[in-house]
């Protein structure tokens, strides 16, 4: 038994080389000690080596910045003098700042435009794809997924181009006799104009998730409804939607939390303008940090943490709901 484990050990150590931390030296020492200690302790050592890179990286690049952000939010940071402890002052500043609420409102409005559109579109597309032959369904699944892999910078550039004075959007409304619009420079049209690429980037993944849900509905439900003479809309309303209740709920909540956090699209398309009409919370935070006003650092950190509190709580709840359902399935 010793022989068989000794030889491949060296090989295993070589293969793990690229991961960095569990070096060959450490592996050897483990193997030697392993002869005396019971097996379950050796599993400890292996497990620790396996999780070390993950723990170290997350510790340095996520948990430290997070703790640091909390710490800094209690101080007034300035380049000219030492940081001064101000307790919850910045939380009060943020929570009484109308600009913060305005940006939250913009985020909510954007979510209100984007999420229901995506849900309806995804439901219709998924129901339709479920009726197709295998090859056509495969083609459609890929087609709807392609926009999802395009970066929001590229999407922003394409849509700025589409909204040009001589662009496609104005040509299109011209067909209905409408005059050209300055889409991104008019307060009322700017946010809907940002919502369109957000829908375009987001509907593919939702469609695939809904399709997975629809394919899990027993076909006999649809067949008996068909025999009873239910049409497509009735089947969708009475069978598909109730059966997909959990999927829809999941997509609704993740969609809202993600859309509220959207900021790369408005950053590249409008930089929050005109008159803050597209200033989503994250863009507001990002820009107030770049402003470089005396209290910008602490202010934007505190605003980001408050936003995180809300969104993080929602995410934990979704996660609980989804994983508890999974365990009851299995």
């Amino acid at each position, binding site marked *: 038994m010793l022989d068989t484990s000794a030889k491949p050990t060296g090989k295993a150590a070589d293969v793990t080389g690229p991961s960095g931390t569990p070096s060959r030296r450490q592996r050897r020492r483990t193997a030697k000690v392993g002869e005396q200690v019971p097996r379950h302790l050796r599993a400890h050592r292996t497990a620790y080596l396996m999780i070390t890179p993950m*723990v170290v990286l997350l510790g340095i690049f*996520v948990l430290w910045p997070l703790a640091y952000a909390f710490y800094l939010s209690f101080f007034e940071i300035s380049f000219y003098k030492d940081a001064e402890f101000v307790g919850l002052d910045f939380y009060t500043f943020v929570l009484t700042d109308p600009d913060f609420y305005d940006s939250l409102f913009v985020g909510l409005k954007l979510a209100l435009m984007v999420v229901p559109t995506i849900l309806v579109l995804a439901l219709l597309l998924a129901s339709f794809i479920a009726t197709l032959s295998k090859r056509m369904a495969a083609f459609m699944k890929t087609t709807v997924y392609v926009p999802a892999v395009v970066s929001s910078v590229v999407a922003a550039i394409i849509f700025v181009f589409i909204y040009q004075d001589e662009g496609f959007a104005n040509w299109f409304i011209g067909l209905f006799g409408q005059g050209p619009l300055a889409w991104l420079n008019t307060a009322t049209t700017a946010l809907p104009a940002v919502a369109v690429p957000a829908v375009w980037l987001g509907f593919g993944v939702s469609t695939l998730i809904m399709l997975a849900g629809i394919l899990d509905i027993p076909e006999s439900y649809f067949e008996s409804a068909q025999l009873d003479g239910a049409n497509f809309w009735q089947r969708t309303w009475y069978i598909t939607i109730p059966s997909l209740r959990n999927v829809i709920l999941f997509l609704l909540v993740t969609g809202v939390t993600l859309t509220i956090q959207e900021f790369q699209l408005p950053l590249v398309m409008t930089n929050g303008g005109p008159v803050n009409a597209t200033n989503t919370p994250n863009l507001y935070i990002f820009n107030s940090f770049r402003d470089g006003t005396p209290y910008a650092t602490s202010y934007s950190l505190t605003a*980001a943490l408050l936003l995180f509190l809300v969104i993080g709580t929602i995410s934990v709840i979704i996660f609980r709901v989804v994983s508890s359902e999974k365990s009851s399935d299995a």
Partner: protein
Amino acid sequence: MNRSWYAPRRLVSYLLVAGIAVTALFPLAWMAISGFKSQAEVLRSPFQFFPDVWQLENYRLILADPPFVRAMAITFAGAVIFTVASLVVNAMAAYAFARLDFAGKPLWWIVCITPMFVPAMAILLTSFVVVSKLGMLDTLAVLIIPGVASSAQMFFLRQFYLNMPAAVEEAALIDGATRWQIFLQIFVPQSLGPFVVVGIASFLAYWNSYVWPVLVVSNPDLTQIMQYLATFRSARGNEWGMLMAGSTLAALPTIVLVLIFQRYIVNGVRLAGIK
């Protein structure tokens, strides 16, 4: 899934499929086609979909622009390293959490899974402070290393490993295999599908990232492709033909990746078990 009652409506289906595909892909098609238009034609009024004269000038110009080519190359190299490193780090941790018992496991689980609930913006600004304290600004490392460990990917892979049968592992243990051997020789080869799914997610995350490179990189040699495009747009905003050609080329690797691996991605949605 052919649901038979729809058979008579096949023609309608074909038309719908074509219509949806055209609509979904229209922005990309228009971007690519505008790259073939001359400067005069690209913003011509009235609007016209196809150019009168197809010309390669914009594509030629952008490919002759050294910063563009460098940005594509360095981003591609970074994305490949990033993807491989993520797979190594996240798969190892996923295996440990799924199949091994060790002291303090619940504590380490919380450490590794909490980051999943931390929105990027909450730590973006202090992450910048941390990497500058570590002296990592303006290096390739600062673009790659901070995002390598991903709670979501680790969680996804762990779900997969939890569902692998225990029998094979037990047999291998009795034969004297180490946990590393079991992981590398049994689990890793079985994970091709999940690896493709999270690998593509990593590649896309790196390739498409914009704000992080803007914050941490000012050296032109390290300019990432999305950073290049956004800078091009703000600095040379009227050269739409060239910008569209550049955007097309910048979107191409991700689209090709999806076309190659589409089978895995669609299955991946079911693997993720969101329903």
